[in-house]
């Protein structure tokens, strides 16, 4: 770890916590291994795997079969592309709006500022699952159903509060002289934001992007009601819809789970330090 504090002496609680640390690791790995084992089992064995999870026959062909199985619902490449497009657009939209609004909260004074600030933060406590009915009818009224915007715009609205909180805190911490010097030099506020503030804010921006990326990539309940056009199905929705209750070919579902989870898992494995330390930074500030 990054702190230089010397390692604590081990005593009885030390032993206990060491056992907990290893035990929790095993508890976390087991279901992951289970999915991997299912994805290479025969159809029969996928429903009857032994406790040690090693299948009697390894069937790599499941991965090829899963492709055609999913193609009957929504093809896997389409699922991944849809999720990537929605996630990327929603991140760009949320960040653009959050940056502007946080910059205003941190550096400007105008009547109604506190009211606007708390209004945006209210979004933090509005639970998405109970909003599904009104959200669906609203989006339908706007005529967005059947387009990608039906998902992207609500994502931006529900995504806004946390980045706003993090960025407002960050912009406030920058030295006041920075803004004043720019103003004296006649640099407009928008240019100051773009040329001076944002380059300094890169770590905070990264934290927000990681947080939003995870949230949007994995979002399910809004997608469930707002996506009425199967061609626009995102990954979580696609996975939930291929598992018919009871009779699904689980080895193929598992292979599909592995393939659709791969992009985010690989990203995490490569950037795990940036992921975790970015979120740690955000939580101290926020």
């Amino acid at each position, binding site marked *: 770890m990054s702190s230089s504090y010397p390692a604590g002496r081990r005593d009885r609680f030390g032993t206990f916590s*060491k056992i907990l640390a290893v035990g929790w690791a095993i508890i976390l790995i087991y279901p992951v291994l289970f999915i991997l084992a299912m994805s290479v089992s025969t159809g029969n064995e996928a429903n009857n795997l032994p406790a040690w999870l090693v299948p009697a026959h390894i069937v790599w062909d499941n991965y090829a079969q899963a492709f055609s199985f999913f193609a009957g619902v929504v093809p896997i490449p389409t699922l991944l592309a849809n999720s990537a497009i929605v996630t990327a657009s929603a991140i760009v939209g949320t960040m653009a709006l959050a940056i502007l609004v946080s910059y205003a909260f941190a550096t400007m004074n105008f009547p109604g500022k506190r009211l606007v600030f708390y209004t945006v933060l209210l979004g933090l406590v509005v639970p998405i699952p*109970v909003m599904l009915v009104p959200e669906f*009818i609203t989006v339908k009224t706007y005529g967005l159903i059947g387009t990608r915007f039906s998902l992207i715009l609500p994502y931006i609205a529900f995504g*806004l509060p946390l980045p706003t909180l993090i960025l407002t805190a960050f912009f406030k911490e920058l030295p006041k002289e920075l803004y004043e010097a720019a103003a004296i030099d006649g640099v407009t506020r928008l240019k100051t934001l773009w040329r001076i503030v944002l380059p300094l804010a890169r770590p905070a921006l990264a934290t927000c992007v990681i947080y939003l990326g995870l949230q949007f990539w994995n979002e*399910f309940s809004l997608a469930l009601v707002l996506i009425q056009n199967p061609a626009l199905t995102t990954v979580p929705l696609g996975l939930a819809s291929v598992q018919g209750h009871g009779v699904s070919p689980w080895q193929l579902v*598992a292979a599909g789970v592995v393939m659709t989870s791969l992009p985010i898992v690989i990203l995490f494995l490569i950037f795990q330090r940036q992921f975790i330390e970015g979120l740690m930074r955000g939580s101290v500030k926020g």
Partner: protein
Amino acid sequence: MKRGFSKAAVREKASSYLYVLPALAVFGMFIAFPFGFAVWLSLRSWNGFSSLSSAPSVGFANYRQAFGDPVFHRALFDTVLFTVVSTIVQMLIAFVLAFTLWYFKPRFARALRALYFFPAVLSMIVVGLAWRQLLAQGGPIDAALTAGHLPIPNWLGSTTLVMWVIIWVSTWQWSGWTMILYLAGMVGLPQDVMEAARIDGAGSFTMMRSVVAPMLRHVTALALLLNVVGGFQVFDTIYVMTGGGPDHASETLGTYSWWVAFSSYGPGQLGYAASIAVIMICALFVFSYFRTRVSRLV
């Protein structure tokens, strides 16, 4: 500083609103308006098919229906149970894991940290599917219990057990996220306090309980807020594992309002579903209001 009323100053003030306007517009269109609409709809009877403008006004009938509806009571109870239990258990596990990594610095601490966080990267659908099949009849957990000659519970088919399974799956997935919050707090702790406690002969448990935990009270407050708000949002895990069943035994407010409005087995009462949404959002507003009041007192 002189208060400027020059044209330039006024124009600058006015242009400030341009920075907040886009965010406010999106918020207004996709959160405030739907909420207002939910309030309006909660006073009507509407099946989703007839024209909305002709939906008859029914006064507070939907709210009365909620207070007399045993499934609503069950969903409310389960939501609170889920939120309270999963919040407490998750925070305990997260705190001890964070303390272990930070205080004892085991080998592979960084790899363990990544592993503990890993489930938070997966979608709740994937995690729900994995656990559903792990606990299915003839699955590996069954096999292990059979080998140990232990009784095999019907994990997801038992009305008394199912909610606890859901709580477990959520704890499995999100403890690592809460751990990150605690780790972030621990890295910033003043080291002289710890040194003093150690010279006084504090063991590691005392250190955790009486030195570290009190200094991280602000992290606990943040984690509590995030977990409670998150707990009320539980939906995906239940949708994919049980669909709210058996017999509504794992129904929460989110899944129940979805079922009432959209499920092909449900009654298709959108007005009633809206009243459930309004009740829940009001409850959360009251909670967050009192929480901020309380934290200001502390």
